[in-house]
């Protein structure tokens, strides 16, 4: 019992540290612009938390999370465009590129409540149907990874092709307000930051719960021995499906928050490259750990910004090297390092237990 206590209490200590850093420290020391960037990283981190569950815990290499990030982002962006246009109004870009008529599938998003529901439910439906089709047919491993990547690619191409209704390669931008709050006001941007950071912290807590739940244990079991789980009376497809859907919803929420914070969403934010980019932070932080994916995503976001400011073009080298070195040498990510450090500290307690195990 003692060991389990050590194991479980530390993530919460880490969570508390992260919470203090995000909610107290960062707003105190960062300029509005830098805080806005941090808000953006938080959106990526929310998606990363979901990837941690699906990939780290569930073993599904989700190469196409941009699809769900994009569903949430575009749903939110469409709502904001319609809200800006006012009741019955037509978004500016439609008048410019199209025939100035709002398509039927845009209309429901005029309502903020519907938008929120869409952001939360649409990924459940899409990921649910897709997951059902894929996992029940036992498509897994590389097949699944490549399929999910192809879907993200198809989604981006589709968006680019529909200039009149999605803004095409330009994406959607120029939002004035967010549920009644003017987006030009720095105070409101700070509010958005707190919302993003708050949702990130809450989603990590939710993930902590999932990790500790029987579902979390079952998911790891499915990852390590999918076929074996069948003989324990559980269809692994259902377990994977659940994790995949949770990851999709988190990506969607991250995408939805990204829109008012970044002020834009474009097909570049949802395509193949963006989708793999989301994995970088998860790999760095430690895919299977609780805090790793979020912390990794924040670090990678920060590194990308500062490196591209200092040495344009070097980001490719850095991201490339990150994938190679971390996955080759440190598959557990930074969390593995932390774990190693802790074990060294706790070394004295171990021998007795080791002996018991060796028996």
């Amino acid at each position: 019992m003692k060991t389990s206590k050590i194991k479980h209490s530390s993530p919460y200590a880490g969570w508390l540290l992260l919470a203090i850093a995000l909610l107290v420290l960062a707003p105190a020391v960062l300029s509005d612009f830098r805080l806005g960037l941090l808000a953006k990283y938080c959106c990526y981190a929310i998606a990363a938390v979901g990837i941690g569950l699906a990939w780290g815990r569930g073993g599904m290499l989700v190469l196409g999370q941009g699809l769900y990030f994009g569903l949430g982002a575009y749903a939110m962006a469409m709502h904001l465009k319609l809200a800006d246009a006012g009741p019955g109004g037509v978004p500016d870009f439609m008048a410019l590129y199209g025939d100035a008529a709002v398509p039927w599938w845009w209309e429901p998003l005029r309502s903020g409540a519907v938008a929120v529901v869409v952001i939360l439910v649409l990924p459940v439906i899409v990921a649910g149907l897709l997951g059902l089709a894929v996992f029940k047919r036992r498509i897994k491993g590389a097949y699944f990874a490549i399929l999910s990547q192809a879907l993200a690619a198809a989604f981006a191409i589709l968006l680019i092709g529909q200039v009149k209704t999605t803004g095409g390669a330009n994406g959607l931008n120029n939002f004035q307000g967010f549920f009644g709050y003017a987006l030009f006001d720095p105070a409101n941007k700070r509010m958005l930051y707190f919302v993003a950071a708050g949702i990130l912290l809450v989603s990590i807590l939710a993930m902590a719960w999932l990790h500790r739940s029987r579902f979390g244990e079952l998911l790891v079991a499915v990852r390590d021995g999918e076929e074996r789980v069948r003989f324990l009376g559980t269809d692994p497809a259902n377990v994977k499906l659940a994790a995949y859907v949770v990851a999709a919803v988190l990506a969607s929420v991250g995408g939805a928050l990204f829109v008012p914070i970044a002020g834009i969403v474009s097909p570049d934010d949802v395509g193949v490259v963006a989708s793999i980019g989301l994995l970088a932070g998860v790999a760095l932080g430690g895919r299977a750990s609780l805090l790793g994916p979020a912390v990794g995503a924040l670090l990678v976001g920060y590194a990308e910004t500062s490196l591209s400011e200092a040495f344009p073009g070097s980001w490719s080298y850095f991201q490339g090297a990150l994938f190679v070195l971390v996955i080759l040498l440190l598959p557990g990510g930074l969390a593995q390092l932390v774990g190693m450090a802790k074990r060294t500290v706790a070394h004295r307690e171990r021998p007795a237990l080791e002996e018991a195990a060796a028996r």
Partner: protein
Amino acid sequence: MDAILAQVFTGISAGAVLLLIALGLTLTFGQMGVINMAHGEFIMAGAYTAFVVSTITAGTELSLLIALPVGFLIGGLLGLALEASVLRWMYARPLDTLLVTYGVGLVLQQVARDVFGAPAKEVPAPDWLDGSIPILGYDFPLTRLFIILLAAGCVAALLAVLRFTALGREIRATVGNRDLAETLGISTRRTDRATFFIGSGLAGVAGVALTLLGSTGPNLGTSYIVQAFLVVVVGGIGHLKGTIVAALGIGLLQAFLAHALTGSVAQVIVFLAIVAFLQLRPQGILSVRTRSLA
């Protein structure tokens, strides 16, 4: 009728391009389960090889023919280097190779950008590939005909190597059953390296050929890699025949859809069709039966 014929030709030549690109992947993916995302960058390396060769030979008529074997060598050596430095440590984690090789691809792209500069390079086609020949009343560009022949040649050469050489037998034995091959005294390490060399070399050849159709730039590989993997997956991982069928099938489907609809919509439909196809045949067009569990 003419339109249908034209699309059949266009589809076949698009399929030949896909086949050239996917051929190497079938080998590396099929034999070792390595998902080499840097395959696209090996193609890019092949294209730059063609550029360098054509610069050195000052655009002589033979530069393309010289570039093909050199491209094979360059692609193959890059593959060897990747295998020896990174992949050999990762055979136990095939899924992770996807991300590692993606990282390698990113680095190679940026290297190309720094060495050759961002602007695209033009590799002039030799005069003997200038123009077109009429086939059934359709003007078939010689460059595309060349690519179809090259793809066919590569398939034939690969088959010959697999069938008739000792190396080929070892490769087939290892693909068939790694452990058994090892107990029979085959050095699977060496076979792995050889396979990777050939597979990556084929990427180099594809790169040289692609200069006949498009531009040579750092992003050359990325535009093909997703499609190439889809071809391999649809064909059934590790199956040459399946890959051929899949490449031609996807090429034709894309050509006809692009003719009837627009290029963007065609691409989306092809992607979705593949997802749907894998619902029906999760193991691809051809599949192996194994007695093993899991």
